[in-house]
């Protein structure tokens, strides 16, 4: 057995163990440890991705050599490895480039706790992507919720505390529904491992006697994860949460955590229920409608905002709507588009949040647009970085955002009914609304002013990470075909 096959286990166990050590280290040491762990995870993920590409497939890792139903498994295939590589890259970049935004707002005596929680989040993300057992998935969803509430609370202000409580309450409602759905599914099938669940569900569905129980289970699971990831109408906690946490925390929550929950849902839909049964239950139509509403309402609320962070938060709600739109369409092509959007948004939103922090910082900490006028003279690099992210969100060609919109559009052409027309109409409306609110922001930032150009005092790490985000966004847009081909190959063996 190749050593490479054991890497996913090391990637999960290492951050979990070292988070305990981080909590007793000094802030700087904890940061270095966290960065090293993230870098190792990134390298290991790429290593496994290459292994899967060369050997053309997937494998199951049995933990401790205990077979079903006593043991636990990890499943490693192309989709899992590529998504977790993106998550590791984004986490590493946020922790490296977001140093300023973390250390400016969090008490220095608590920095070690912040990085310990980041390690827990890192482990949870990897488990949510790699696990082959849905109950393990639930446990790590809860760990992720607790850790993400922690990184919000550590800011210490009253507002961030209230926002963290609101986030936690909604996350717990979602977790409760998810747990009940999983328990109900276990009650019907007697299995928790994904391959066994799939077999049982197909058999039960064909008997025709279990349509209602299966519908109930998928509904509980889908609604639970939708609440946690912020699908309309459960998105209203986002503005307060992303607006009052540190920019790095908002980037982690918006860029990777919500995506990991959605990936777990996609895994359940494609791998446990199969797309045919999922579509037959009718849940896909409900998701589709709420996703369309989410795109339009999220974009509209972003236009109405005067605060740059809250605007980015509502933009996230709209972008999450895109991912759910792909799930709601319920075809392989639309799932590919959703997975592409997960990658594209994960690489764009953290860049927007981190740039917004820089722009706000050089404008005397102002969040309101009226105070950001002429910010390009105060920090040209952050303004360019923000603009590039904004252009990607709008869907300008060569960027990742354009390709995801193109993929959603083409995947809708499989249908010839209301789904095709609604998808195309919403894509057009959303592009117009995106253009309005990002143009509004960029016009303010690039307003000509008489101020002299200031020397840029942004840290070197931020500049490097800004360039990494910009280049990876362009790379995803330009070499989209390669990425899509890997996802399609992965979906065949998912």
């Amino acid at each position, binding site marked *: 057995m190749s050593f490479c096959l054991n890497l996913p286990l090391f990637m999960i166990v290492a951050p979990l163990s070292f988070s305990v050590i981080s909590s007793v280290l000094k802030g700087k040491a904890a940061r270095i440890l966290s960065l090293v762990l993230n870098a190792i995870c990134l390298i290991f993920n790429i290593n496994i991705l290459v292994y899967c590409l060369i050997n053309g497939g997937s494998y199951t890792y049995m933990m401790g050599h205990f077979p079903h139903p006593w043991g636990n498994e990890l499943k490693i295939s192309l989709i899992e490895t590529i998504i977790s590589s993106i998550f590791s890259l984004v986490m590493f970049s946020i922790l490296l480039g977001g140093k300023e935004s973390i250390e400016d707002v969090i008490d220095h005596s608590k920095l070690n706790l912040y990085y310990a929680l980041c390690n827990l989040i890192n482990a949870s993300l990897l488990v949510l992507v790699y696990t082959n057992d849905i109950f393990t998935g639930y446990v790590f969803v809860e760990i992720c919720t607790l850790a993400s509430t922690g990184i919000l609370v550590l800011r210490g202000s009253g507002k961030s505390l209230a926002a963290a409580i609101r986030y936690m309450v909604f996350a717990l409602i979602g977790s409760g529904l998810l747990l009940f759905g999983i*328990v109900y599914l276990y009650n019907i099938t007697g299995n928790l491992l994904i391959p066994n669940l799939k077999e049982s569900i197909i058999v039960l569905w064909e008997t025709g006697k279990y349509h209602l129980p299966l519908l109930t289970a998928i509904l509980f699971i889908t609604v639970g994860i939708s609440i946690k990831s912020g699908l309309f109408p459960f998105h209203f906690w986002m503005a307060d949460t992303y607006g009052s946490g540190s920019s790095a925390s908002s980037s982690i929550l918006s860029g990777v955590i919500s995506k990991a929950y959605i990936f777990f849902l996609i895994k359940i839909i494609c791998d446990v229920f199969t797309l045919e049964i999922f579509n037959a239950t009718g849940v896909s139509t409900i998701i589709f409608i709420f996703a369309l509403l989410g795109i339009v309402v999220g974009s509209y609320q972003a236009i109405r905002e005067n605060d740059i962070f809250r605007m980015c938060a509502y933009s996230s709600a709209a972008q999450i709507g895109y991912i759910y739109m792909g799930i709601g369409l319920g075809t392989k092509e639309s799932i590919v588009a959703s997975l592409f959007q997960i990658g594209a948004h994960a690489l764009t939103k953290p860049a927007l949040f981190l740039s917004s922090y820089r722009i706000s910082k050089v404008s005397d900490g102002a969040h309101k647009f009226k105070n950001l006028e002429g910010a390009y003279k105060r920090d040209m690099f952050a303004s360019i970085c923000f603009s590039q992210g904004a252009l990607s969100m709008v869907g300008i060609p060569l960027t990742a955002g354009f390709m995801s919109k193109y993929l959603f559009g083409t995947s809708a052409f499989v249908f010839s009914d209301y789904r095709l027309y609604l998808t195309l109409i919403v894509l057009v409306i959303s592009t117009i609304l995106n253009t309005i609110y990002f143009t509004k922001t960029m016009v303010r930032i690039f307003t000509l002013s008489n101020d002299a150009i200031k020397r840029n005092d942004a840290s070197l790490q931020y500049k490097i990470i800004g360039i990494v985000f910009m280049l990876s966004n362009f790379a995803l847009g330009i070499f989209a075909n390669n990425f899509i081909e890997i996802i399609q190959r992965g979906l065949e063996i998912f």
Partner: protein
Amino acid sequence: MLEILLNNRIECVAVILFAVGFVTLLVNPNMIKKIIGLNIMDSACNLFLTSIGFEYGKTAPIVVDGVTSTSAYINPLPAGLVLTSIVVGVSVTAVMLALSYKMYEKYHTLNLNEVYRINHESEEDEK
């Protein structure tokens, strides 16, 4: 219909408890009541899991008197899941209680609506 409900009475109670906990967690503005709602919700899930694992006439899977037939024992997995779920529930409750304590320290209230109102007023004052 009544027969089905009676046959699945434990599951029915679990669903009712889950709904009670869910509504309390969602609607009640008081943090302590929210935490109680959360615990009711968790307990409902645990009750549901326990009911799956229990079968009349079977005992815990510990070999006694040389009986090795699997049909004599219950499946221990649901009990294991309940244990895991209890641990998760306790951790979440601890964090929620810690947040409530911090909230009371800062705002001198446990009512979330009151906290939002205070925050909103301070924002208005800043404007």
